């Protein structure tokens, strides 16, 4: 019996004009937003995380606080970290080794064109492989810097990929001028998907200090812990050490010790904010859509008054008329849901494609079967709820009046 109402409702929907479908806009935009958002959640997470440069889950980052301006990490701080700080942190129990890095902006010339980028040092040391692992530097073309490579540099992937600034790709073997000194490019780093990291010049610490005329300053210290379980403990110890070294009280630190967890938490907060925003927009959209359905169903009841009269004349009970319009309204919502889910997945697919090609990652499209079924059921429900009042009005029609 209920099948009959669906058949009838489908027949009626098939003959609906474009006006009815336009009122569904709200429903399908809302559904589309939610489905796209959820199917993209892994992708967004990866994209945001990569911008924070979280590479290694066992690395604690220490930076000086009290920023007086904008710039690369460590720039403009009033009381910078020093080489000695790095050496002291290196000795903290739980810390495997600590690397102090100098980071600065630089002017680079190549092919008679100039660009402004960041450069960062890698420390001297005998275990360069560990250092590269810790700072997450991998080579796409050419090779890593070796000890004694004092006039050599490794460039970020953008110097190779993006030809806008310099007019052509920079390749291993090319010569570049950095702050008026000549360097040879030995390697191109793997793509990171982060604007800063992909535009970074990496060189040995000594030539970088020479270039800057810096002696002792360190902009960021990366401390590799022995194992992830030691992370919290090591963080506390480093904080204690740094408070002592810089002579500050608890709560008045002029430095910052951050763990990858904290960064990831921040990523989740940002993602949560984005999600909440989209869910709010989607909810408003769905409410608008529901009102649209109420509107189109009310109009439909008025337009089909005579039809209602005829159905009553040939024996339809009030409840049967109600069910007829109620089902139709639910199906209207369901159609909105189907369109929304389809477009949402499509947007998700395109979004994941964009993220993957930009980051060089292989993030999957999150298709949650229950989400889709739930969304469709929800759309049907919203449609039917919107149809209750119009359907009641239809059922209440007096047959004599309706047939007049």
């Amino acid at each position, binding site marked *: *019996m209920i099948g009959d109402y669906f058949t*009838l409702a489908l*027949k009626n929907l098939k003959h609906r004009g474009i006006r009815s479908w336009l009122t569904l806009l709200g429903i399908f935009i809302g559904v589309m937003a939610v489905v796209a958002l959820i199917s993209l959640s892994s992708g967004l997470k990866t994209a945001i995380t990569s911008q924070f440069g979280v590479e290694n889950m066992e690395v604690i980052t220490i930076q000086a606080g009290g920023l007086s301006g904008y710039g690369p990490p460590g720039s403009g701080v009033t009381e910078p970290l020093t080489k000695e700080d790095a050496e002291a942190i290196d000795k903290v129990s739980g810390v495997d080794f600590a690397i102090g890095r100098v980071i600065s902006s630089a002017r680079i010339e190549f092919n008679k064109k100039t660009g402004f980028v960041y450069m960062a040092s890698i420390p001297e040391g005998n275990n360069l492989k560990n250092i590269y692992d810790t700072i997450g530097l991998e080579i796409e073309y050419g090779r890593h810097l070796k000890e004694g490579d004092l006039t050599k540099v490794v460039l970020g992937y953008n110097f190779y990929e993006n030809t806008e600034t310099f007019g052509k790709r920079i390749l291993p073997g090319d010569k570049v001028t950095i702050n008026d000194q000549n360097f040879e490019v030995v390697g191109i780093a793997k793509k990171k998907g982060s604007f800063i990291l992909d535009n970074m010049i990496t060189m040995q610490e000594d030539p970088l200090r020479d270039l800057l005329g810096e002696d002792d300053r360190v902009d960021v210290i990366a401390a590799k812990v022995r194992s992830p379980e030691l992370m919290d403990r090591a963080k506390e110890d480093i904080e204690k050490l740094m408070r002592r070294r810089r002579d500050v009280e608890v709560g008045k630190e002029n430095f910052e010790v951050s763990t990858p967890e904290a960064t990831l938490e921040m990523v989740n907060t940002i993602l949560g904010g984005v999600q909440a925003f989209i869910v709010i927009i989607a909810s408003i959209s769905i409410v608008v859509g529901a009102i649209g359905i109420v509107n189109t169903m009310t109009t439909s009841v008025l337009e089909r008054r005579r039809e209602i009269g*005829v159905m009553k004349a*040939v*024996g339809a009970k009030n409840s049967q008329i109600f069910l007829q319009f109620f089902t139709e309204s639910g199906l209207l919502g369901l159609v909105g849901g189907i369109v929304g889910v389809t477009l949402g997945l499509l947007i998700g697919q395109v979004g994941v494609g964009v993220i993957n090609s930009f980051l060089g990652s292989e993030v999957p499209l999150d298709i949650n079967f229950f989400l889709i079924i739930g969304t469709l059921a929800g759309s049907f429900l919203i449609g039917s709820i919107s149809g209750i009042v119009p359907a009641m009005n239809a059922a209440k029609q007096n047959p*004599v009046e309706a*047939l007049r």
Partner: protein
Amino acid sequence: MERKELIKLKEVAKFYRMGDSVVKALNNIQLKIYEGEFVAIMGPSGSGKSTCMNLVGSLDTPTKGVIYLDNQDISTLHESDLAQIRGRKIGFIFQSFNLIPNLTAKENVMLPMMFQGSSISKRERKARELLDLVELTDRQHHYPNQLSGGQRQRVAIARSLANDPEVILADEPTGNLDTKTGQIVLDFLEKLHKQGKTIILVTHDPDLAQEYAEVIYWLKDGELEKVTKRYGKEFRVIHKKK
């Protein structure tokens, strides 16, 4: 042989409130329709014949008086109960056909059976049978707007027969048709009458009423003016307003 009383109106009146005044659309109507009769309800516009048809067809309930359908008092029934009884016992044919535009001819015929809860296979079979009867088998999948006026009215006749009703109530069934197609429709009604169906024809056309009906109720200004009955080729007054 005593014939079964199918519809009986006893001192029935229908009043409408219009602003502050009350309009007496129908007053003091006595009417008895027997099984198998061909009855006409005759009257010019404004005579109350539409109101009378609504009451006879149980589309409406009276302000005063009692209506019996098949010996059951239906004047105080709830609308939904009325709908069920109406769907089973009375088949309607309207002047403007009143087919559902989004349904094909066959689906229109099936509709009254759906409201009675018949199985889909039974509905299909019966609809085919009835469309065959009105000679529209080849048009069963057409939509109303693909059919001519005469064809539409024949679909409406088939629909009126869907639940095997005892009474066919035809309200000006030829009003929107040309003389020739109108004739075909009336011939169908006549054929149904010969098969034993009770036919009630509501019309403003006295010639039409006298050509087909056996008993004619003449309405004027909301009251029953006279009742005439056919004896052979002539009609005799069997009741007259005092």
